[in-house]
């Protein structure tokens, strides 16, 4: 039989306290190399002690204490490599575009849904003008009835830099929600994609009926291509999540979800800086008559081409270009 518990604790406690002190300093990030070695040794001893208490003193406070201590030390010793700046660079240079190309099926499906909504909205309003009352927000309808562009007033209420940041954060929120609602078995994402498409389609059709389509295109041209692309990409990420819930394959549903979630969020995180940039364009360039329409359109096409060029070409390795089968084709 083992020694009594109090005697055991008294004998081993010194090591545990030392380990605890080292862990506190490790969190503060002030460990030297030899202290790190001590930490490793102490962790191994504590593990052995944990095994000992598991056998001889299960369920006691000493057992729970060692459990927790070893858990903290385990987390400190086996922590994943930290993401630092080189990792961020590598993410945008290679990982983000590569993930997008691998999951192009989902992004394609998302684009199809969005375009479906677009066509639906436009057809309904062109066919039956009454439909606009249902599909177009009343504020926008009000402006159109007066023959004015609602976007002309964006600048008159606030200085442009706060408009730009407001638009950028609003777009980010829309993107995040489009992705996150994929958790509802993809239904939320599906709804948001079609709904956004219907809205934009209906507004365009309404403007076309009132002869204002030129003004609308003038506003949309500069930022539209990139912004709508990003919405579609986030929708693709949401659909990935939904797909992993509906059809987890050979994995348990929870694990499949966690695996796909990690991939899907890469698409959303990768889009974030581009959304912020395009928010600046939308705030400064798109409203008003500061720039002629041809310049806005040119900028919009150039930005869109750059964005997609980056997504489709960046970090493409020889193997990928040669068309080797993807590891996660689904």
């Amino acid at each position, binding site marked *: 039989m083992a020694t009594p*518990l109090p005697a055991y604790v008294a004998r081993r*406690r010194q090591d545990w306290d030392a380990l605890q002190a080292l862990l506190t300093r490790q969190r503060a990030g002030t460990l030297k190399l030899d202290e790190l070695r001590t930490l490793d040794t102490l962790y191994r001893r504590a*593990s052995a002690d944990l095994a000992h208490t*598991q056998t001889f003193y299960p*369920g*006691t406070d000493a057992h729970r204490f060692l459990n927790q201590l070893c858990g903290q030390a385990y*987390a400190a010793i086996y922590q994943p490599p930290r993401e630092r700046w080189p990792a961020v660079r590598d993410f945008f240079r290679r990982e983000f575009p590569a993930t997008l190309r691998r999951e192009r099926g989902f992004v394609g499906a998302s684009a199809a849904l969005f375009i479906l909504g677009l066509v639906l909205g436009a057809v309904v309003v062109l066919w039956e003008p009454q439909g606009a009352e249902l599909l177009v927000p009343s504020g926008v309808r009000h402006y159109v009835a007066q023959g004015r562009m609602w976007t002309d007033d964006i600048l008159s209420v606030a200085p442009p*830099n706060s408009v730009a940041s407001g638009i950028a954060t609003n777009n980010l929120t829309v993107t995040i929600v489009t992705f996150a609602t994929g*958790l509802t078995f993809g239904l939320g994402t599906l709804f948001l994609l079609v709904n956004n498409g219907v809205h934009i389609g209906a507004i365009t059709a309404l403007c076309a009926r009132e002869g204002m389509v030129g003004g609308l295109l003038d506003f949309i041209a500069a930022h539209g291509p990139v912004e709508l692309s990003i919405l579609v990409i986030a929708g693709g990420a949401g659909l990935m999540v939904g797909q992993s819930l509906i059809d987890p394959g050979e994995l348990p549903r929870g694990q499949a979800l966690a695996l796909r979630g990690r991939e899907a969020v890469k698409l959303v995180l990768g889009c974030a800086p581009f959304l912020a940039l395009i928010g600046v364009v939308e705030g400064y360039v798109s409203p008003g008559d500061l720039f002629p329409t041809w310049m806005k359109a040119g900028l919009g096409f150039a930005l869109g081409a750059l964005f997609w060029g980056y997504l489709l070409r960046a970090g493409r390795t020889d193997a990928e270009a040669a068309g080797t089968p993807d590891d996660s084709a689904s």
Partner: protein
Amino acid sequence: MRSAPTPHLDVATPERVALTLPVAGIGYRCLAWLVDASLLFFFWLIAYFVFTLLVSDVLGVFQGLSGVAQTLMVVGVFATQWLYWTVSEVLFHGQTVGKRALGIRVVRWDGSPVGVYESAVRNLCRAVDFLPMLYAAACVSMLLTRQHRRLGDLLAGTLLVREERIDLDKYTAAPEAAAPVTSAEGARTLTPEDVELVLSFLSRAPGLAPDVRQRLGARLVERVGPPDAASLAAVLASAESTEAFLRARVQGAR
């Protein structure tokens, strides 16, 4: 043998030891969220007053600043809504201020600390977990899953573990200086449960009502093996002598 009554996370380390970490339940999580939410609320209360001061420009010196202030306001609202959680979880080893206050921590399902991706996923999903109001979806999900995970945790493959403050001093507290009764040599050896029971009684005894203290002490003396009939009366004479006997008994083999 007592098995863990609460949900827990089992981790097998490469050292071939099984860790069992207690999972934080819905109560801990709600309280931690309340702490964080009120922190953010007060932060914005203050920011709002500073902001209105800048915009209304009472002092007339902020003319050029008000535009910048509005930008900061918009970006700041966004940051507290979306970035606060992820940034603090990544920088402070899985803890926000509220989680630190409650002693809970986000870990991956294998017990390792969260990285940027996991933290980003679970916090972006707050948008869905919040639906339809006040984290109703999250609460339902926490009640239904074994390890109390909300939807964002399921998607990110994370969960929250609890850190208890366990006091080891009760094992090593010195026996009282003049123990009137020596431990009963040759009595049966105590099981860890007995030791645990006696120690927890001893640490709580000063806070108990006198008669309860006396009665519990007497029952414990009975349990851990009473001394011979002659000294029994001496042991049970007062609460102090009873506890001195018990302390000597559990630390007897030292």
